[in-house]
C-alpha cells in the first residue's frame, strides 16, 4: 500500500503498509484523544508511544474499527503513565501559552462559551476519574457504550450505567458551580453572562 510518499522501501513491506494504514487512518483521533487528556507538551510523546506500541504489537492490532478501540486502549494506559511520571521533562512555556490561548469565534460567543466551558470542565474535574473518563469517551471520542466498555475493559452494561450516572453527576456539579456564581461577582474576562 502506498502512502503517496513514493518511498519504495516503505511500500515493499507488508508490516510497513499495515502501519501506514493505521497511522493515516487513526493518527488524528489518537492525537485528539491524548490532547484532551494531557497538557500540550506531553501530547506528542504520548502519541509516539501509542504508535510505537502499535508497531511493536502489529500482530495484535485487530482489523477495521476495532483497531481504533485498540489504539484508544493503549492511549488510555499511556495517558495514565504520563500522569504518573512526576519527574518527566515538561515544557512550562508551552503549558502557560496554551492556557492563555482562547477559542476562536465571535467575541460575544467566545465570552459565553468560555464561561460555560470553564464551568463544565470544572464540573467534570470534580467527578471520579472513571466517571469523567466515560464522559470524555462518549462526548469527545463519540464512542458507543460497547466501545467505551472495550476501551476501559469493563462490561457494556457497566459502561452504560456509568455513563448514565456520570451525565447526571456532571449536570449536578455544573448547576452547583453555576449557583455559586454571585450575580454581583466580577464577570469572566471578555463579557457578561
Amino acid at each position, binding site marked *: 500500500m502506498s*502512502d503517496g*510518499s*513514493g*518511498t519504495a522501501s*516503505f511500500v515493499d513491506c507488508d508490516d*510497513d503498509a499495515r*502501519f*501506514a494504514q493505521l*497511522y493515516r487512518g487513526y*493518527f*488524528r483521533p489518537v*492525537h*485528539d484523544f491524548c*490532547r*484532551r*487528556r494531557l*497538557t500540550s507538551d506531553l501530547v*506528542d*510523546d504520548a502519541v*509516539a508511544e501509542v504508535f*510505537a506500541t502499535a508497531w*511493536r*504489537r502489529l500482530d*495484535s492490532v485487530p482489523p477495521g474499527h476495532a483497531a481504533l478501540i485498540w489504539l484508544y486502549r*493503549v492511549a488510555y*494506559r499511556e*495517558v*495514565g503513565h504520563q*500522569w504518573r511520571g*512526576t*519527574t518527566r*521533562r*515538561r*515544557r*512550562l*512555556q508551552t*503549558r*502557560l501559552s496554551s*492556557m492563555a*490561548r482562547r*477559542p476562536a469565534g465571535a467575541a460575544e460567543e467566545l465570552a459565553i*462559551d468560555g464561561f*460555560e*466551558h470553564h*464551568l*463544565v*470542565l*470544572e464540573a467534570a474535574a470534580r467527578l471520579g*476519574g472513571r466517571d469523567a*473518563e466515560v*464522559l470524555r469517551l462518549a*462526548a*469527545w471520542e463519540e464512542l458507543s457504550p460497547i466501545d467505551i466498555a472495550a476501551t476501559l*475493559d469493563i462490561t457494556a452494561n457497566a459502561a452504560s450505567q456509568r455513563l448514565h450516572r456520570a*451525565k*447526571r453527576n*456532571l*449536570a449536578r456539579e*455544573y*448547576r452547583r458551580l453555576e449557583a455559586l456564581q454571585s450575580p454581583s461577582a466580577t464577570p469572566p474576562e471578555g463579557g457578561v453572562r
Partner: protein
Amino acid sequence: VITDDEVMRVFERADPARREPAAAPIDAADYLEAVRARESGTDVIVVDLEPVKHGPPSPRRWLIAAAAAVAVVLFGAGVLVWSATGEDGTSAPAGPATSSTALTAPERALSLTGPPPSSPEPGELVAAISFSHLSEMGSALGWVDGWLNVYADGRVIAGGFLPNQRTGGHELSEQRLTADGVERVRQEFVATGAFDGGGPLPGDSRVLYACQCNIRVRDGGLLLDTATGGFSEPTIAVDPELVRRIDHLVRFVSDLGSSLPATAWMAREARPYVPSKFRVGVWVEGAVNQADPDLSARLRQTLPTPLVDRLDAQGWVHTPWGDSVDVTLADAREVAASLAQPGTVPRSSGAQWRLPGSWTHLSLNPILPDGNPP
C-alpha cells in the same frame, strides 16, 4: 434550570481538541522511521517530527537529528557544569572520590552498591517537592528535573541532576539537617501559600500548572499535598505571585547546601542514599490488563527460582497497570544481577528491563523512608 442533556452538550462543545488547530499531519513513512529510531533507543529523533514532507527522508533529517543529539549531550554537560558551579561562579565542593565510570546504570539509578543502607528505615515525611523547572544555565535555558524529601529525623533525600554530580554518579543522595534546619525548610514550603485555602485539597491544580511541581508539607499534623487527582485540564487561573513564590522554593531546594546556614546541617556533604527496600514492578506492555497472568512462571524463566519464591512470599499487589512487590536491598541486588544477561533489554532509565522473549517489563524503584517510591 439547565437540564442534564444541555449540560452534556456544553461538555461536548468544551472539547479541548476542538479549540486546537488540526494536528499537523506527518508523512507515515517519516513517522515509521522515527518510531523505528525510537525503538533503537534514540528518543531524540522523535522530536524531529515535522509536518508532511513528501519524498524519501532527506539526509538533512539525520543531520538535524544528529544536531539535536549533540544539543542534548551539550545540555546534559551544561547541567552538570551548572550544578557544580555556584551562583558566584565558584566550584561547589567536590563530592566523594567514588568514580561514576565504575557504576552500571542500575547502580547509578538505584544505589544498589555503596555504603550500608540509610537508617532508620522508616521516617516521617515533613516536606517534599518534585519539579521540572526552566532554569538559566549561563546564557542557555534548560529544563531541570529533580525531587527532594525532608524527614523529621533530619534526612534530606534527593534525586535528579544535583546528587548525580555530588555522590560519585549515584542518582540518589542523602544529607542530614538539624531539627532547626528541618523547621526552616518546612517554613519555606508553607510560605509558598500553595496551601492557603485557594482550592480543594488534595488536588490543587494551581501548583502543577504553575511550575510542573508537586509539593507536600506537614502542617498542623496533616501532610498537605498539591497532587492533582485526575486527567482534567486546568480550569484555575495561575496566580503570578504563587508562581514567583514557587520559583523561589525551587531555587531554594535546588541548592539546599547554600540556601541554609552551616548551623542548620548535621551532615551537609551529600552521600549516596542506599535504600533498605525496593519495589519490583512487572507489567505487560500494550495489554488491556497489564498484570501478567503468568507472573511467577514468567519470572522463573529469567530469575533464580529461590528468588522468585521469595518475591511470591512477599505477596504481589495486583492492579490493572501491573503487579508489584516490595523486596529487600539484597533481593533487589539479586534481581538486578540476574537481569544482566543476554536477551534482556535494559531500558533507558537504568532501572527497567524487558524480559527475554516477552513484552513483560520489570522495574526496580527505591522505597524511601516514608514507604513510597520517589
